[in-house]
């Protein structure tokens, strides 16, 4: 067992940033361990993206965009299927027998990493925030108890390993250009099996194209202090001005004012943007754990004793219905 395998993801025909984070870490580990650096991408990848990948120090790039049935019939892979993706990755594992497989901590990576680990008897650690190569094995840090504690564990040398990286936790670094060997592969799933697998019928996008809180570098969140779902228009306007995502506290999600996908916190998303602006949010511990790792936190709240001020970098005490529109106005004026 030797070598690294990064599992890359595509979104809107582009290799995702979290995949580039994975590649950057993979290259570091491969260099340190003097091992082969491989990557796999599932789905149709265009030439532009293959070009882009040449800057990340990959030795072999496996591309899987088809499925071959038992009778040799080849079909295009369309839509996400965890089982078929798992088989595609497993077929590469069979060829190169990697020691370390790295996923992004996205909905896809979270879904696939445990499957790959179990099927191939690999050790597994999910949502890692730092990785270092040690003689005893691979040492990783990962948040537990929703980030109240950081644990350091070693995935020992003797066993191959699967890890996933918490998104937005690593830097992206390009290497000098090299030409990876490109290998097209096909997953081998028989029609019989496919018939019994769950199928993706449809993907529903929100009516307005919005940035997702887990990927945005700026988030503007609203809480119960917004008083009415209609008032979120001032949050949306501020978010648009900053090219930010809209976030929400659980109080407003449970009230049906905002979708769950926007909820930040223990039972929502754990985010770490460059800037988090909390408007009318009290700062309960379950909200706090979801956003405490933001690089800069701004709170707007009319109660000067609100807990949110205890862990914000900057606070303004006052009525958000005056402050938020004023902030939008000032930001629209370029310097």
């Amino acid at each position, binding site marked *: 067992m030797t070598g690294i395998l990064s599992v890359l993801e595509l979104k809107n025909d582009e290799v995702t940033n979290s995949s580039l984070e994975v590649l950057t870490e993979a290259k570091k580990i491969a260099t340190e361990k003097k091992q082969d650096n491989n990557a796999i991408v599932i789905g149709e990848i265009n030439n532009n993206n293959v070009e882009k990948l040449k800057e990340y120090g990959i030795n072999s790039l496996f591309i899987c965009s088809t499925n071959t049935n038992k009778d040799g019939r080849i079909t295009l892979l369309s839509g996400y299927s965890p089982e078929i993706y798992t088989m595609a990755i497993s077929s590469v594992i069979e060829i190169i027998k990697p020691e370390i497989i790295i996923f992004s901590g996205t909905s896809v990576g979270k879904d696939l990493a445990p499957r790959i680990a179990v099927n191939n008897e690999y050790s597994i650690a999910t949502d890692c925030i730092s990785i270092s190569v040690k003689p005893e094995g691979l040492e990783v840090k990962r948040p537990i108890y929703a980030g109240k504690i950081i644990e350091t564990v070693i995935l020992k040398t003797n066993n191959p390993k699967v890890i996933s990286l918490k998104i937005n936790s690593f830097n992206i670094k390009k290497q000098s250009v090299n030409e990876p060997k490109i290998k097209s592969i096909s997953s081998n799933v028989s029609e019989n099996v496919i018939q019994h697998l769950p199928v993706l019928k449809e993907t529903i996008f929100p009516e307005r194209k919005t940035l997702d809180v887990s990927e945005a570098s700026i988030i503007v969140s609203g809480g119960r202090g917004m008083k009415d779902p209609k008032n979120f228009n001032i949050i949306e306007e501020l978010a648009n001005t900053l090219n930010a995502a809209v976030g929400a506290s659980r109080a407003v999600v449970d009230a049906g004012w905002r979708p*769950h996908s926007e909820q930040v916190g223990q039972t929502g998303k754990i985010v770490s943007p460059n800037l988090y602006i909390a408007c009318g949010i009290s700062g309960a511990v*379950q909200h706090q754990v979801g956003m405490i790792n933001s690089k800069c936190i701004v709170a707007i709240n009319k109660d000067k004793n609100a807990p949110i001020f205890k862990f914000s*970098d900057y606070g303004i005490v006052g009525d958000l219905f005056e402050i938020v529109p004023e902030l939008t106005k000032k930001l629209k004026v370029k310097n």
Partner: protein
Amino acid sequence: MKILICIKQVPDTATKIKISENKKTIEQTSIKYEINPYDEYAIEEALRLKENDPNTTITVMSLGPERVKQSLTKIIAIGADNAIHLKTNEDIKNSFVVAKILANEIKKERYDLILFGKKSVDQDNNQIGIMIGEINQIPCISNCTEFKINNNTITAHREIEGAIQIFESKLPIIITQEKGKNELRYPSLRNLMAAKKKTIESIDIVEQINDDIELIKLEYPPVRKEGKIIGEGKEAVSELVRILREERKII
């Protein structure tokens, strides 16, 4: 229809977690244990299915120390039919080991629907349900906010970044539950008393050692220093904008 729900007890989300002196465990004294929040959403979905189809039986299963009985009793009090306690001395940390033990017990029955939380909020693994699907060769749809069952077919909404995927599958199926729309109901005192009299099947688990992952230490994340209140009301906005633009350079 036969439904199984696997539940884990975790520290109440409001609990302050204290690291012990050995830096490898957490202080147990001040912790209140509760049902993992995502498992609660799964339980509520199961109870609603049962309300619509009285032919449904609900079994709950939990692997853990003596204290988990209390949660199992609570779930019986709100409508589960059976509970199975896989008894250990303490929580097992290695997800692989947990998945194998649960998978082995699950195999003993034929369930149509097996529910898990998407993750446990103590270990934050996001693994067990998905692993059991692979081990027992049952398809698994992870991260579902809601699902419907009609004539042996399930339609499930899986939440991904910025969209919802709608999956369809035949039963049996494993679902890992994201936060749903329905909060878990409370047991009445009377039902709770009745549930306490019901026997919970208990199976002693011999802990399998798997030392492929070694815990080195636990630590607190770096503390954020208390920030400053820039000012009050609208007048403070210019200063905020100046700081974000010029000092922090983030906008």
